[in-house]
């Protein structure tokens, strides 16, 4: 606390915190928080700090830390999605619980389906995997390998056939055989591609998922806001899974996405194995941001 080595009571003014806020903004940006979101956070920290009275050394750091935490919580804490409770409710009606996965190319949708099926199996739920990515080379075979490894049923049609029809058949299969969960894989698509976004809407219309999960890559930068915003607008996302957080990503994308669509993050992906999926807690984001600051200090 060298910079604030005064003892007498002092009221915080804008000038006193300019440098702190600038550094804060830089470390948020370095953690891949999108520019406009970092701006919003810094503004809210500033508002929180100005006018406060400092009485002792260390107050400034404490106030700043608390203000930052509060601001991050506000963005990231979009309620907890009670996935298991939700599944139970739907299962009581005798219907299978349907989850549809969407996102841009290569974020980890297919792998995450295999991970989530593994997770749900631990709670006693049986899954059927719907190979609705009929477009990308090797996509059906990829999901097929996962199904084989996990000893689960996959519903597939030939490559390039109608993805909505595959999803429909997967739901049908679950109903007929009493499976608990239908996990629908879809092709990666750019949010700027109107045709593909329409196709995704059609898959949703036909398969009527109980929940749509947006799979985002923790390594992505500023585009996270645009992507999430557009997907949410077109298909109404219910929850988020953030992948590849094991790659030393700070994962500021979680804040960027949370800020624009206010939807909860359910899980984070922490590796390529079937067990590498953990439940998301807002504290994770706090740790990410603060570890970084400590490392720099």
């Amino acid at each position: 606390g060298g910079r604030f080595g005064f003892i007498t009571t002092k009221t915080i003014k804008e000038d006193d915190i300019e440098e702190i806020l600038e550094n804060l903004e830089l470390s948020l940006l370095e953690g891949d928080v999108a520019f406009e979101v970092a701006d919003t956070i810094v503004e809210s920290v500033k508002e929180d700090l100005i006018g406060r009275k400092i009485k002792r050394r260390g107050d400034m750091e404490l106030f700043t830390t608390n203000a930052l935490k509060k601001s991050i919580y506000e963005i990231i804490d979009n309620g907890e999605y009670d996935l298991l409770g939700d599944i139970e409710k739907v299962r009581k009606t005798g219907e299978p619980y349907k989850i549809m996965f969407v996102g841009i190319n290569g974020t980890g949708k297919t792998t995450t389906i295999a991970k989530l099926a593994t997770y749900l199996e631990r709670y006693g739920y049986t899954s059927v995997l719907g190979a609705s990515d009929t477009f990308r080379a090797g996509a059906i075979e990829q999901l097929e390998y996962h199904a084989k490894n996990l000893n689960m049923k996959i519903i597939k049609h030939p490559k390039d056939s109608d993805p909505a029809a595959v999803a429909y058949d997967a739901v049908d299969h679950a109903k007929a055989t009493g499976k608990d969960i239908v996990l629908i894989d879809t092709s990666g698509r750019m949010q700027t591609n109107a045709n593909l976004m329409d196709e995704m809407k059609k898959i949703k219309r036909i398969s009527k998922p109980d929940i749509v999960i947006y799979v985002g890559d923790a390594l992505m930068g500023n585009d996270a806001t645009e992507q999430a915003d557009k997907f949410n607008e077109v298909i109404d996302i219910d929850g988020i899974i953030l992948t590849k957080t094991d790659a030393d990503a700070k994962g500021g994308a979680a804040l960027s996405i949370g800020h624009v669509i206010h939807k909860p993050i359910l899980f984070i992906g922490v590796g390529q194995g079937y067990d590498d999926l953990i439940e998301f807690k807002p504290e994770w984001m706090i740790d990410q941001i603060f570890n970084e600051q400590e490392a720099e200090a």
Partner: protein
Amino acid sequence: MLEGLSENLTNTMKKLSGMSIIDKKTLKEITKEIQKALIQSDVNVKVVLNLTKEIQRRALDEELPKGLSPKEHVMRIVYEELVYLIGEKPEPLDINKKPYKIMMLGLQGSGKTTTTAKLAKNLKKRGLTTAIVCTDTWRPAAYEQLKQLSEPLDVPVYGDPKNSDAVDLAQKGLEHFGSKYDVIIVDTAGRHKEEADLLDEMKQLSTVVNPDEVILVIDGTIGQQARNQAKAFKQTTTIGSIIVSKLDGSAKGGGALSAVAEINAPIKFIGTGERVDDFEAFDPERFISRLLGMGDIETLIERA
């Protein structure tokens, strides 16, 4: 949002229009806007700070060239510094021996396998024959993916889904194709800087393949991590060039610039879609316009 940003930059630049000398305060404002533009385009914060320090220094130190307004002068410096980083002209992929061995490298899901097929198609158009070796033993159906991508191109793929030794696969693949083809592309599994085993595997692959060119595939949507990841990759092999994928979305591709700054290898191509034809030679000028969120940089430079 980005439109607004370029507007800010343009508006700030306009302030310079009427001035006959560059004053410090305006320069600082402009520097801030340039920083904003670059960071919003995902260029690494440290790279941006270094870059703008140099821009500021030059704008103040260098004499205003005759016939240039301060605005044109600053714009030219910005452009020159970016060009200094990424190169003025697109560097071609120079196939100078047979077989010319190319090895792909990159993070999980960055686009290596798709880019391998795009490259094979591109080479075919140049009249060169290509063969592909699949060494990805991690991702389920990596071999099938390559097979399906290359079949319509009539490009052979060596692979064996039962073999889980990437180095062995590389060795066998190279032996299999010998010197029958002009180019052999070795596709590899995705990996990142925290996966020590996989980085070690890359080192071994590099020794066994002895590639003539290692191509780093960078996801156009990646953010600040591009720099550190590139740094870790650099320690496993000598990277000769970069291909930026997924530039058909709305991301600006600044992560690639950070990688260039880190490993000092040129960007040679960009990927602009999922199909094998969605592949273009890298155009530095267009890329810089995109980074700065300014459409009119070319005309500015021409006048400058």
